[in-house]
C-alpha cells in the first residue's frame, strides 16, 4: 500500500489535523510502511468469521431513567479557553456577517 500526499491531506482533513508540509511527507512514508506490515492479514480468509467489537459478555447496559446530580457548571467550564455568559464560545459556524463574534 503506497499513499500519496493527496491521500494524507484527505485523511488529515477528515481528522481536523493541521500538518506542516514536512509532516505530510513523513506521514506518507511511515503510514505506507505500516500499512504494508498490516497487509499480513490478507493471508487469512475471514469471510465466515464474525467480527469482535468487544470481549466481555455485556450487552445494552441500561440504568433507570432518573435525574442524578451532575458536576457544577462552574467546575465544568473552569478549563474552557473562551466563555460567554456561562457557555463555551466558538467562532460562528454558519458564516456570514457577524460570524466572528469572538469574545476573547
Amino acid at each position, binding site marked *: 500500500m503506497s499513499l500519496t500526499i493527496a*491521500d*494524507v491531506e*484527505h*485523511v*488529515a482533513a*477528515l*481528522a*481536523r*489535523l*493541521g*500538518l*506542516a508540509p514536512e*509532516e505530510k511527507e*513523513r*506521514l506518507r512514508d*511511515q*503510514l505506507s*510502511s*505500516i*500499512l504494508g*506490515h*498490516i497487509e*499480513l*492479514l490478507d*493471508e*487469512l480468509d*475471514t469471510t465466515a*468469521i*464474525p*467480527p*469482535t*467489537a*468487544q*470481549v*466481555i459478555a*455485556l450487552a445494552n*447496559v441500561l*440504568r433507570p431513567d432518573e435525574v442524578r446530580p451532575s*458536576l*457544577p457548571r462552574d*467546575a*465544568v467550564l*473552569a*478549563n*474552557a*479557553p*473562551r466563555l460567554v455568559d456561562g457557555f*463555551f464560545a*466558538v*467562532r*460562528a*459556524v454558519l458564516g456570514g456577517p457577524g460570524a*466572528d463574534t*469572538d469574545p*476573547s
Partner: protein
Amino acid sequence: MATGADAAPVGRPTTDAPTDLPAAELRRRLDARELSAAEVTEAYLARIAALDPDLHCYITVMADVARAQAAAADARIARGEAGPLTGIPVALRDNLCTVDADTTAASKILQGFRSPYDATVVTKLREGGAVFLGKANTDEFAMGSSTENSAFFTTRNPWDRRRVPGGSSGGPAAAVASGLAALGLGSDTGGSIRQPAGFCGVVGLKPTYGRVSRYGLLAFASSLDQIGPFARSVEDAALLLGAIGGHDTMDATSAPEPVPDFSAALAGDRDLRGVRIGVAAEYDVDGMEAGVKAAVDAAVRRLADLGAEIVPVGLPHTKYALATYYITAPAEASANLSRYDGVKYGLSVESATLRETYERTRGEGFGPEVKRRIMLGTYALSSGYYDAYYVKAQKVRTLIKRDFDEAFARVDAIVAPTSPTTAFPIGARTDDPYQMYLSDVFTIPANMAGIPGLALPCGFAGGLPVSLQILGKPFDEATILRLGHAYERSEGWAERRPNLA
C-alpha cells in the same frame, strides 16, 4: 548484547528502608506503629527530591497533598480504622484524572488541565487512605513503548539510565523500581503496564477487560484499555487490584463480577501440583534475545519443579495480533481523541474559523506518534477502507480470542516472555515506528482477547531485568497471582534493587 541469562547477582539486595520495603511490609510496620505514614511519606518525598531530577519519573509531584494524606492516614491508623492501603505512597500515571493535580497525559494539548472529577480508581484509593506522591510520566496519551513520546521528557531506566523504562506507563514503573513510590497505577492497552514493568524489573498486572472501572482514565482505545497495578511483589499487586477492582455504574463496560479476595488466594502453599500451565511455540520468535529466552525457559523449568504440569498449546494467530492491534487501537483512538478540539479545555489556537481552530489546535497540540495514530485510525475507518481494514481486524480479533478460548479449555494459565528484548537504549527505536511497535508483540494478544496478564521478574540478562508473563482466563486473576507468587517466593529476583546512590 546479552548472550544468556546473568549468573552473577545484579543490583543490590533489599534493605530495611521504607523506600525499599514492599507495601505489605509497610502495612505491617504502620499498623505496629514502628513507622508513621508521615515518616514513610517524607522518606519517599526526600528520595524523589534527590533522584527524580535525573530519573524523570514524575510530571507533577504532589508533596502538599501527600503530606496532608499522610497526616490523615496516621490519625486513621491511631483510631484503628486503617485499610490495606492507608498510608501507602502511590504513583498515579498522568492519564488518571485527579481534582488536586493537573492531568496532562504527557501532552501539550492538555498542559495545565485540571479535571473537575477524580477517576474511580483515584476515588477508591483516596477513600482507602492512600498517599498520592504524584502524577507519573507516560508516552503521550499512552501511545508508545518507551516514554520517549512524552511531550515533556523521557523517563530513565533505573537499571541503566541510558536506556528506556519501557512504556507507555514508564513513569510509574520506574518510580516503583527506584523506590520513588511503593505502588503505582498505570493503564495497559497493548502492554503499557506489563512491558515497562518488565523493563524496570517490577511486577505489573493487566486485569481482565472490565475488572477495573475506566471512569476518569483518559481514553485511548476503549475496547482494550484497562487500569492495573505496579508493585515490588506479587502480593502487593494483589493488594492493589483488590482495592481498585469491581463494578462501577460510571463505566458501562465495567463488569458486574464479584471481586475475590486476591490476597487470600496467595495464602496457600507453594505446591503447584495439579496446575496445568501452557507454553506456546508461537511466542518463540525471531529477534528474541538469547538472554530473555534463557531466563524464561529457566522460569518454566522452575514452575515444573514446583509441581506444575507444562503443556504445549497452540496459539496459531499470534503472529497476526500486532497488525490487528495497529488497526483497532488507532481507529478507536482517532474517535476518542476527536474531543481535543480547543473548545472545552486544554490548548486552543484561536484562528479565523472554527475549522481552522480545530486544525491548528490539534496540529500544534499533538506530538508525532499521536498524529501518526490518529491518521492511521482515520484512514482505517474512512469510506472505502472500513471493510478492508477495520472490519477485517475485528474478524481476526475473533480468531485470536478463539485461540485463547481453546487453549484455556486445556490449561489454567499460559506463560510467555513479557517482551522479546530487555530495555533498549534511549533513541534506538525512535526512527522506525514499526520497530517500536514490535516491542509489544507478546503483550498485545492479551488485550485483543481481554484476558488478564501478569508480568514479573524472572532474572537478568546483560545486567537488565527479564520478565515472565503469565496469562490467565477471563476474571481469573487469582490463579495467575497465585502462580506468580509461588514462583516469586522460589526465586529472589523481586528482591533485587537497582543501585541509584
